[in-house]
């Protein structure tokens, strides 16, 4: 039994249970949180190393042979995603320690956080379609509670939309599973891939594939399904927004990439062109939405949508290089976006607001923060040699290689608008002098700057990784390339799950 595959689920589970048992002692819960997240990170990195060296790993739960039991499987793509989830979890948990108020902490923040991570990791590792649904529900319910925890008015309004639209997505997903099982008689994804590959009438599952596309499209925040995201992401505490921003939509992207490379590949001409069109529209509507906003977290929320478009672009192009671009984009984006939300939180703490009209003067007063913002912001905008540049470059090369000029043009234009948005935050919050008006400076800011290190530590960590991915992109790119190879040639995946069977 390959324990490394189980750790990303059991470590958060165990941490969650222990934290829940220590309900009354926040000290213990905090310590457990740090320990558990660090443990998860270590396990995830070990898993990634293992998959890199030894190829795709799988474990049959309860030792029931695939496709009858549930298989956990880690190909490079899955392992990368787990590692990113663990990294995000670790960074945001550190940030939570200094930013989540004690009331929320004492109502289960830490166990919920761990359950969220468990759900995310489970979704990345499972090889079974229904089990994927279960993990989706686990992470969703945890995110519901985290979103609503505190019960402020904005949170309630945001949560109602968030919950409703995500439940609709789950219902469509579940219906899709039911129909797909009715047609193919199996739930194991590798088994599905194999059966549909051999089946001459396999295009009969195309209507079902649309249900999956929409269900995951909602979760990923793609056009025209993204409404829940800008309505809710700015309402909960910053740490919650940050972990959501980093991970949740990406689970949707992951599921889309997984399903539409592994078994919904009967009619690539139709499905993937459709995905490409949605990708372009997602980029454009997202970036325009961001341009219309004036608060940092709202701007960033819309940019999540826009960036999802780039990740889907790679899937829509469906070449090895394009998929490598998508994977690289995911690596880059999760780190950068989480970090930007965290920095937005620091700004909010320092200034008492993140409304660009009300704040300013950060460049003069907090040069380190300005630098820490500039790194992920310009990376997001694709300025070389930061990580985002290489991610976009890969996708653009991939697009031009197969003459998809329209999407390339869109991607480039959206790039310049992204730059516009990031400089807007920079110009207003950092360069502009603090506007006159009621003193917004948070009275708590003095104490925060004292303890700012606790908030800045995860920010520095993530910024350093962003710089590293840019400066030494080759190893990351090699990782993405191998992951893409495994996606586009799923034989190894199928073999790892089903064993030597033909």
């Amino acid at each position, binding site marked *: 039994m390959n324990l490394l595959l189980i750790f990303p689920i059991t470590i958060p589970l165990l941490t969650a249970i222990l934290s829940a048992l220590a309900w009354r002692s926040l000290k213990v819960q905090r310590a457990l949180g740090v320990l558990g997240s660090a443990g998860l990170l270590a396990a995830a990195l070990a898993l990634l190393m293992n998959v890199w060296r030894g190829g795709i790993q799988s474990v049959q739960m309860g030792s029931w042979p695939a496709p009858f039991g549930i298989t956990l499987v880690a190909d490079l793509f899955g392992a990368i995603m787990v590692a990113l989830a663990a990294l995000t979890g670790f960074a945001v948990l550190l940030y939570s320690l200094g930013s989540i108020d004690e009331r929320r902490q004492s109502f289960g923040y830490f166990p919920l956080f761990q359950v969220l991570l468990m759900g995310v990791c489970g979704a990345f590792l499972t090889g079974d379609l229904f089990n994927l649904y279960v993990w989706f529900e686990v992470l*969703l319910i945890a995110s519901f509670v985290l979103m609503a925890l505190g*019960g402020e008015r904005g949170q*309630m309004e945001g949560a109602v*939309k968030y919950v409703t639209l995500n439940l609709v997505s789950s219902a469509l997903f579940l219906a899709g599973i*039911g129909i797909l099982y009715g047609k193919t008689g199996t739930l194991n994804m590798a088994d599905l891939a194999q059966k549909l590959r051999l089946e001459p009438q396999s295009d009969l599952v195309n209507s079902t594939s649309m249900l999956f596309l929409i269900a995951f499209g909602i979760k990923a925040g793609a056009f025209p399904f993204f409404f829940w995201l800008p309505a809710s992401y700015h309402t909960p505490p910053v740490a919650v927004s940050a972990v959501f921003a980093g991970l949740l939509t990406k689970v949707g992207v992951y599921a889309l990439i997984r399903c539409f490379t592994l078994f919904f590949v009967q009619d690539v001409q139709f499905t993937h062109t459709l995905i490409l069109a949605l990708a372009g529209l997602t980029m454009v509507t997202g970036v325009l939405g961001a341009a219309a906003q004036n608060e940092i977290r709202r701007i960033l929320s819309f940019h999540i949508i826009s960036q999802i478009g780039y990740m889907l672009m790679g899937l829509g192009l469906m070449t090895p290089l394009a998929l490598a671009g998508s994977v690289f984009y995911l690596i880059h984006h999760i780190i950068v976006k989480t970090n930007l939300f965290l920095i937005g939180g620091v700004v909010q703490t320092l200034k008492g607001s993140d409304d660009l009209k009300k704040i300013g003067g950060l460049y003069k007063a907090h040069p380190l923060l300005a630098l820490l913002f500039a790194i992920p912001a310009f990376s997001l905008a694709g300025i070389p040699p930061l990580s985002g540049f290489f991610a976009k470059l890969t996708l653009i090369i991939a697009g031009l290689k197969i003459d998809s000029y329209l999407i390339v043009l869109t991607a480039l234009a959206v790039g310049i608008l992204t730059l516009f948005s990031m400089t807007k935050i920079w110009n207003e919050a950092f360069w502009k002098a603090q506007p006159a008006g009621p003193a917004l400076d948070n009275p708590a800011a003095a104490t925060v700057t004292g303890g700012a290190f606790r908030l800045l530590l995860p920010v520095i960590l993530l910024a350093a990784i962003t710089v590293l991915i840019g400066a030494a992109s080759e190893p990351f790119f090699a990782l993405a390339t191998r992951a893409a190879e495994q996606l586009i040639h799923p034989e190894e995946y199928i073999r790892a799950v089903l064993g030597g069977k033909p």
Partner: protein
Amino acid sequence: MELLLAIVIGGLYAAAIYSLLRRSIVKLVIGLILLGHATNLLIFTAGGLTRARPPIVAEGALALTPPYADPLPQALILTAIVISFGVVAFTLVLVKRAYKTVGTEDLDDMRGTDR
């Protein structure tokens, strides 16, 4: 009977969608509950209907002998029922709290976070 169930499922979906599109927050929850029922029935039907014996191995037998109802969709639905109960329970309380906090049950008045 597949046709009948297909119609019932379609009807439940239609009712769920209509209810979800109402402005009342309680209707929203009703819609979600109906959506759950419809989906469970859909899995049940799509998995293959038989008026056969339940999938329980008879005393003395070593394995199920056909015809028997497909046990796998049943297991999935069981899981789905319980999960959707948990989620709906949470949603109900959320709706109640939202109603109390915002002071209205009209969803059209809950637009503050979008602008």
